[in-house]
């Protein structure tokens, strides 16, 4: 079984992020790393291929400046190869044009299953993967907390607010996984050394049969008009328990109408 994992390479979240002043998009000048959210997808894919007894995991990423650092991390975890789409024409892409690019790249790998995270750590619109599935014309299941593949179908426990739904669709399909789905492995030293020699195919927009006008700022249907800092969270109220603490808690819960 062949699985594609969409992996986003993002600025290190440990460093304070920056937005460009004109377009309000994330500044991605420095080195980009593997989005931690996607480590779950990579692990899930490796386990599924293992369980299927054969096949391989291919990574697909769209990122500026021919960035491969994050891909190398995922290759070190055990993925076999990667497709990277990097092109100046992609600057200013919104989620839909990103989805078009990813879908075109995914098609080249002819996978049985595509895995993505439910949302990225930096942009976190959580809208890209389902749009990828739509462009491909494949069914998709979001918020997977458990994934199993058998007899040409994928069975997913889909996280809901109250529990989970069991959903099953036929392959090829796209699944987005939550952070609870599996525990990602760390890249081993052997994996790190092996990653060096694994193929990363770098493509331009035109290699994918797309027109530069369909993607990037030119193709974006969405524009960030303005950005405002999130309101600072108000300090909580500290209740000192003088024997009547429970009454104050009940009063508070009544006030916010949860009881």
């Amino acid at each position: 079984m062949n699985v594609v994992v969409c992996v986003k390479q993002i600025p290190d979240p440990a460093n304070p992020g920056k937005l460009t002043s004109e377009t309000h998009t994330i500044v991605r000048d420095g080195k980009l790393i593997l989005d931690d959210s996607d480590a779950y997808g990579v692990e899930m894919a490796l386990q599924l291929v293992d369980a299927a007894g054969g096949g391989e995991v291919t990574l697909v990423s769209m990122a500026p400046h021919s960035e491969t650092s994050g891909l190398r991390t995922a290759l070190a975890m055990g993925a076999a190869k990667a497709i990277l789409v990097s092109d100046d024409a992609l600057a200013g892409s919104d989620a839909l044009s990103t989805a078009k690019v990813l879908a075109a790249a995914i098609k080249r790998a002819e996978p049985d299953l595509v895995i993505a995270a439910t949302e990225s750590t930096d942009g976190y619109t959580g809208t890209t993967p389902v749009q990828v599935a739509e462009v491909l014309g494949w069914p998709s299941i979001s918020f997977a907390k458990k994934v199993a593949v058998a007899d040409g179908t994928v069975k997913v426990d889909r996280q809901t607010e109250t529990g989970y739904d069991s959903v099953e669709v036929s392959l090829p399909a796209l699944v987005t996984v939550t952070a609870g789905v599996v525990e990602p492995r760390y890249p081993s030293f052997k994996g790190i050394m092996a990653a060096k020699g694994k193929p990363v195919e770098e493509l331009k927009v035109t290699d994918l049969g797309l027109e530069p006008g369909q993607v990037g700022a030119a193709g974006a249907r969405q524009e960030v008009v303005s950005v405002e800092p999130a309101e600072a969270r108000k300090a909580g109220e500290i209740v000192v328990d003088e024997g009547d603490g429970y009454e104050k808690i009940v009063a508070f819960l009544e006030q916010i109408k949860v009881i």
Partner: protein
Amino acid sequence: MEFHETEEQQALRGAVGKLGRSFGHEYFVETAKSGGKSTALWQMAGKYGFLGVNLAEEYGGGGAGVYELQIVAEELAAAGCPLLMLVVSPAICGSIIQTFGGKEQRERWLRSIISGESIMSFAITEPDAGSNSHNLATTATRDGGDYVLRGTKYYISGVDEADAILVVTRTGTDHAGRGQLSLIVVPTDAPGLSKTVIPVEMTAPEKQFTLFFDDVRVPTENLIGTEGDGLRQLFQGLNPERIMGAAVGNGIARYALEKAADYARVRQVWGVPIGTHQGVAHPLAHARINVDLARLMTQRAAWLHDERDPLAGEAANMAKFAAAEAGIAALDQAIQTHGGNGLSTEYGLATLWGPMRLMRTAPISREMILNYVARHSLGLPSSY
């Protein structure tokens, strides 16, 4: 001249750091205080191939060098988990057995050191020899197919976690009356070997032991390399030992400075973050400069060692000295920056004082390094 780490070395830093942070300093402190062992972290490090990065691929190692191993030590320490046995098991014992051990010995001991399934301690220090290894009094005498060991070693780390100990013994005396040394592997359950814990004021999962060898018999197959050639063989392990000691110190220093800077950015007592006051900021900046200099020397020493350059010995000693001094100063300043909190258990700084302060004394003391540099690098006469 090339000062960039390769993509693989950077990736190794990232992966080890992540593993270390998933355990964190709280794990280290809780384990130490409850009398537990850091086995869970050790075995994870083994599973991912981090313990044996410097050792041969043939035995499951990474086939890289001491440069990579010091990355492992530094990143784990920077995550609040300074594992002292890294200095001993893969660095000293692993390097020596890989270089001088026979095929069967490597198969037997190297493989499990690399996988983390077993740990090997190292015993050179003796109560009566001190820093003078020519004076070692633990003897190994041939008796048929065995060596019989007699003597005492002290401050030997991790014996209760180890399956075997690489023991430096005296198998003869040269014409100048100096010991001819031999390196012998002794299983920790050998009859006649007794171990007594030496209580030390250091928060760390590793315990220290006095070892009494009362006619301990081991087969001559346990001799590493050539009888009487132990001093020369030791040097294969002592550069890695010093480099690794330095790396652990560098990691602790980074951990401390990061915490200090985080604290100084938010703690306010006069309406501005305390980091605004130069009395707080400058000592931290100064400490940072010295820590980065120590790291540079450590990295150079590791590189020279891996290149088999004879300058490695001098560089390793200088790195160990610089890292201990820079690290102690950095940790002290981090504690000072935290005011009273600096001494709390919760803030996780004073808990590192023992392991950090140790670096000035072991594996080789500050004074013995100064002796070495005075004599070797400056050509000054020796007092001993």
